[in-house]
């Protein structure tokens, strides 16, 4: 018998998230005639996919010869061999198909003179198995993500997808057997809590970049999908791997493009030294992202950071002709003035390596099914996009491969739901008696908490802890200390207090509920990072340096495996990397060098 109940709505499929991956999945389901609900914290075309400017990769070969197998090689290498080769083959083979499909949905790609999709080069994408750069990125001016979302949204409107806008999913519903039966969600406008009871549940909730103090991610990226999965007993995969961008504005996080250094921008420390000359005598300020980021952190850690807290370095373009700045770097002056409070023509811009993308996530196979520790699918549960770990990005993502991931695995998850429904693998099972208990208890706790911590202060403490102890360059003692600190933050988060107890449009409550998710992600990241005693891709440890036995600090003998973090007891387990592709030969382990 149900102890506590909430209104129930029934659907064939519920998709949480209306970014690129959620909208792509929804098209498959709605067009197949399934009753499909899409929940989103914001209007679909306000999802963070809009921020993507660079493009989406596919070996169309429109400008020069290209092949999906080369794309696959680049992705495996980029992942530092932590990516699963079946999923990577699947994604790269499917890329031309999903990009052309998107074109048919009305995506206004840039075109060549002959009317084909125009393609440009992008870091890490090469021809002939790493030989030379290839033009593989397809873009719609500098608004690729925006154009993509609009095209996908229109197609969904046509297919009668039902949108629930400004609804926040709070928890997964799972029964005794572990099958997923939907989600519990909160409508912001009414404060009503409703169960979405469904045959299939697809998570497309995006990333969790707000766990860091300095992040290029919009405020919405609070890792809700990860928090919900973790609370429902599903392990999170490879959470130690986060990609950082070297030049985010200190404090604000807003991205300063690589182009600034390309035009002659110089990084300086507190003694005004051009420190990159010491770390990369040839490439200097134009060395690769990870090299520059690590050098910056070393300067800060050794006391040569700038500002009252010595916690940033300076990006100097004061020596450039103001006319060049205005002409070649449009928007940079405005961004610096608004977000750093300085005019870069007169003073250098404070910058720090800034969190950008989450490689880990909810473990899935290449069909978009969420998998348990034994690699067996969890019935009724699917995931795609940044929340998911297929794993195609492994330890490091290549630029433009994320938008591709959304299209390929959004579509695949939709198709797999359809297959699983047809085969009778999933169906509408009865809700367990306690389906709403856990969520209602959490809400009740928030409504009655007194003498607790402030949500803002807890979030800040969480973000500062992650930034300091688990940033772009990692140190053994800092990680150990970081685990202890995050556990302290977790205790405070469990006691947050909100002053506003009203029902309708209670944003304080929503933010407290987002914080419940951030803490799960932060803890998973810190604990997974502390445990991984090697350097690989984006996870770089000071005590795992470059040696002949372990080039770049990568220790394949002991660490060529995926991490799984279990919320229960904050326990870790590991599973093998899938090295066998679907049809081609394994791309064997090799040192990653460019």
């Amino acid at each position, binding site marked *: 018998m149900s102890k506590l109940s909430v209104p129930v709505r029934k659907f064939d499929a519920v998709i949480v998230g209306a970014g690129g991956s959620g909208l792509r999945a929804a098209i498959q389901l709605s067009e197949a005639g399934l009753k499909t609900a899409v929940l989103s914290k914001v209007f679909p*075309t306000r999802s963070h996919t*809009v*921020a993507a400017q660079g493009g989406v990769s596919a070996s169309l070969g429109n400008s020069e010869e290209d092949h999906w197998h080369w794309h696959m090689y680049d992705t495996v290498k980029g992942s530092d061999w932590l990516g699963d080769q079946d999923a990577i083959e699947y994604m790269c083979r499917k890329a031309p198909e999903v990009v052309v499909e998107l074109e048919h949905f009305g995506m206004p790609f840039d075109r060549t003179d002959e009317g084909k999709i125009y393609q440009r080069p992008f870091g890490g994408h090469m021809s002939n198995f790493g030989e030379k750069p290839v033009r593989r990125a397809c873009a719609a001016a500098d608004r690729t993500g925006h154009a993509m979302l609009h095209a996908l949204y229109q197609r969904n409107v046509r297919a009668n997808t039902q949108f629930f806008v400004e609804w926040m999913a709070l928890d997964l519903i799972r029964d005794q057997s572990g099958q997923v039966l939907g989600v519990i969600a909160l409508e*912001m406008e009414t404060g009503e809590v409703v169960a979405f009871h469904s045959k299939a549940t697809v998570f497309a909730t995006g990333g969790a970049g707000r766990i860091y103090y300095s992040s290029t991610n919009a405020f919405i990226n609070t890792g809700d999908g990860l928090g919900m999965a973790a609370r429902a007993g599903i392990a999170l995969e490879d959470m130690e791997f986060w990609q950082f961008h070297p030049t985010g504005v200190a404090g*604000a996080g807003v991205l300063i493009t690589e182009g600034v250094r390309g035009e002659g921008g110089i990084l300086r420390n507190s003694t005004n030294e051009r420190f990159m000359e010491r770390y990369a005598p040839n490439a200097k300020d134009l060395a690769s992202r990870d090299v520059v980021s690590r050098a910056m952190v070393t300067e800060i850690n050794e006391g040569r950071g700038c500002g009252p807290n010595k916690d940033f370095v300076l990006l100097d373009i004061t020596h450039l002709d103001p006319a060049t700045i205005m002409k070649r770097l449009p*928007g940079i002056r405005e961004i610096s003035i608004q977000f750093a409070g300085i005019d870069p023509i007169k003073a250098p811009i404070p910058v720090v390596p800034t969190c950008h993308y989450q490689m880990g996530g909810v473990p899935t196979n290449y069909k978009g099914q969420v998998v348990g520790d034994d690699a067996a699918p969890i019935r009724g549960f699917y995931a795609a996009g940044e929340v998911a770990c297929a794993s195609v990005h492994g330890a490091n993502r290549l630029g433009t491969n994320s938008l591709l991931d959304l299209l390929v695995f959004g579509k695949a998850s939709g198709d797999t739901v359809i297959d699983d429904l047809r085969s009778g693998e999933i169906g509408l099972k009865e809700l367990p008696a306690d389906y709403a208990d856990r969520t209602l208890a959490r809400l009740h706790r928030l409504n009655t908490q007194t003498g607790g911590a402030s949500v803002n202060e807890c979030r800040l403490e969480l973000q500062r802890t992650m930034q300091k102890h688990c940033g772009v360059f990692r140190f053994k003692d800092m990680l150990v200390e970081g685990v202890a600190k995050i556990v302290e933050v977790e205790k405070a988060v469990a006691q947050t207090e909100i002053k506003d107890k*009203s029902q*309708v*449009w209670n944003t304080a409550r929503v933010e407290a509920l987002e914080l419940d998710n951030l803490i799960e992600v932060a803890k998973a990241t810190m604990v997974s990072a502390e445990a991984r005693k090697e350097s690989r891709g984006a996870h770089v440890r000071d005590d795992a340096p470059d040696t002949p036995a372990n080039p770049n600090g990568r220790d394949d003998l002991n660490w060529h495996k995926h991490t799984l973090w279990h919320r229960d007891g904050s326990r870790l387990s590991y599973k093998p990397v899938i090295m066998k592709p679907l049809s081609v030969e394994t791309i064997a382990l090799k040192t990653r060098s460019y």
Partner: protein
Amino acid sequence: MDDREKLNRLRWRCTRRAMLEMDLLLGEFLERVYPTLSPAQADAFVTMADMEDLELWPLVNGQREPDDPVQAEVLSLLRNVRVK
């Protein structure tokens, strides 16, 4: 909807946007400048907050000018916001 509810809805729409730049700017504006706006300006701001980021961003960084004079007033205040 009462005033608290309206303000909270506006807060959500100012600080859960597609681009970080806009979260920061509109959030800051809402706290510091919005309370000082005239009713007409406040209405104009609500309309602007409902725009998509790629419509609003060119207005904020001066690439475009709005047609509506009240929006132009609000925009000049928005352009002066400093987030630090």
